[in-house]
């Protein structure tokens, strides 16, 4: 029988090995919670899955028009549209993960008051949910890009290339980075309940500051640092490199991706787990 000792703590990390072991033991809970909350959400709507594909598609069109108008009609046509489309749909993975994760603790109030379990399971479940919604849309976007090249061979798009095999690593990095960021905001949201409202503005600005509506090549000289100061900058730049240029990501991009993934998970993880035992008091 397990003996547990509960003692006072000041904001500090729980013992990591038993903590992670407990998270792993209860992973089915995070998986099922993600599955069931999707089930609950889509109960009334058969169009749910189709909407997941159509939403970024429509938004990409809107942004494409916007960018075209702002640049006075001097865009690169279909290449620009393809770039916005692939960028947006990857950015949405991060955004869904961060938004849902940030609210997972405050909305799980009763669960938190009733059971002792590693609280990271709740934002983790949101992240799993974001991936589950993202995964089925991947083939659709690959098809769009590949078919576009086939229909209009004159575009500068590369069409199908072997560098597409780097994409799973890109998505994994997006997930890890945004999970770390979600942990950070989830903690913040417990202490300041309007954080999730603020987050809608942060995410909007974040989208504009990311190489989604503009190409990373548009930045020159020291302006390039903007790209690397953004946690999603390198990974979205690498994303564009693969989809639009047909190249594998550059070494600088890989370093940026690695740095932010580890940085975000370490910072978010520290902030969250060092305070999670206090969540029940605050809720």
């Amino acid at each position, binding site marked *: *029988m397990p003996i547990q000792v509960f003692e006072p703590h000041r904001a500090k990390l729980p013992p990591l090995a038993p903590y992670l072991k407990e998270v792993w033991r209860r992973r089915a*809970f995070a998986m099922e919670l993600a599955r069931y909350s999707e089930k609950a959400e889509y109960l009334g709507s058969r169009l749910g899955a189709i909407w997941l594909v159509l939403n970024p598609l429509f938004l990409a069109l809107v942004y494409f028009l916007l960018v075209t108008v702002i640049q006075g009609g001097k865009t690169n046509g279909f290449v620009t549209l393809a770039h916005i489309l692939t960028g947006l749909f990857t950015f949405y993975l991060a955004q869904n993960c961060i938004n849902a994760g940030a609210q997972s603790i405050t909305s799980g109030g009763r669960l938190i008051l009733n059971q002792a379990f590693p609280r990271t399971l709740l934002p983790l479940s949101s992240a799993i949910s974001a991936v589950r919604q993202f995964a089925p849309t991947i083939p659709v976007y690959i098809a769009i890009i590949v078919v576009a090249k086939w229909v209009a061979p004159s575009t500068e798009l590369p069409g199908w290339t072997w560098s597409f095999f780097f994409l799973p690593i890109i998505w994994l990095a997006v997930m890890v980075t945004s999970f770390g960021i979600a942990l950070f905001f989830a903690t913040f949201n417990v202490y300041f309940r309007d954080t999730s409202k603020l987050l809608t503005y942060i995410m909007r600005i974040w989208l504009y500051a990311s190489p989604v509506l503009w190409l990373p090549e548009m930045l020159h000289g020291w302006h390039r640092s903007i790209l690397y100061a953004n946690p999603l900058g390198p990974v979205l730049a690498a994303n564009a490199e693969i989809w639009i240029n047909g190249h594998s990501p550059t070494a600088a991009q890989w370093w940026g991706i690695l740095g932010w993934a580890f940085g975000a998970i370490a910072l978010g993880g520290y902030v969250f787990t060092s305070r999670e035992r206090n969540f029940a008091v605050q809720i």
Partner: protein
Amino acid sequence: MTNAISIENLSISYRVNIDTKKSLKNLVMRASKGEKVRTRVIEAVKNLNLEVPHGTALGIIGANGAGKSTLMRAIAGILPPTEGRITVDGNISTLLALGIGFNQALSGRDNIILGGLAAGLTKEQITAKVDEIAAFADLPAGFLDLPVRTYSAGMYSRIAFSVSVAMTPDILLIDEALATGDAAFKEKSLNRMKDLMGEARTIVIVSHAMGTISELCHKVAWLHQGKLIAFGPAKEVCNKYLEFLSVGKVPVALEDF
């Protein structure tokens, strides 16, 4: 180790905001006016010592705000102690807040599975138990597969109670004010708790129903404003408490207990 739960010098206090919600907006508004957010420290539990041997049924009684729920959550490891320590020997199952993460749009069956997973069961374990739990909850025909939002309060708490007792926990922590089933279900819950005790499991129950407490519990702890006023055989402590309720004064002789 012979004690299921030992509590040494336990104090729990927390800070609450007096006049505003916790939000960035309020923080900024107040800072711009040069005001500080007013907070107050609430001492929910004060220097409490308690030992609960294995197989004991312990009742916790006391007025509202006596610190009963806080104590229960601390034993479950949900709330951290401010001072002192709690040692718990065994698996814990809890019924401390109603709607164990119950999603209103999901069916009772789905919620049983989620509740079991949240309590730490594996998927196989909870899948094997779903029918047993559903049978114990004994909802009116057809309700098990309807969304929980169509349930009455009683049906809701039946499900919650059934999930928490189905864990075959070593230690069961129940806030009985929540278990508001009808008379027949109350009888069934009592029998189930007696069965668990028969298997040398430990039960801690918070209740305002002196009848239930004196029938079920060996020992009773009476809390008043975070302090342990009396601890002893159920009948004895219950009588003291009832006397206090009619007189309205804490017996001085018991305060140093």
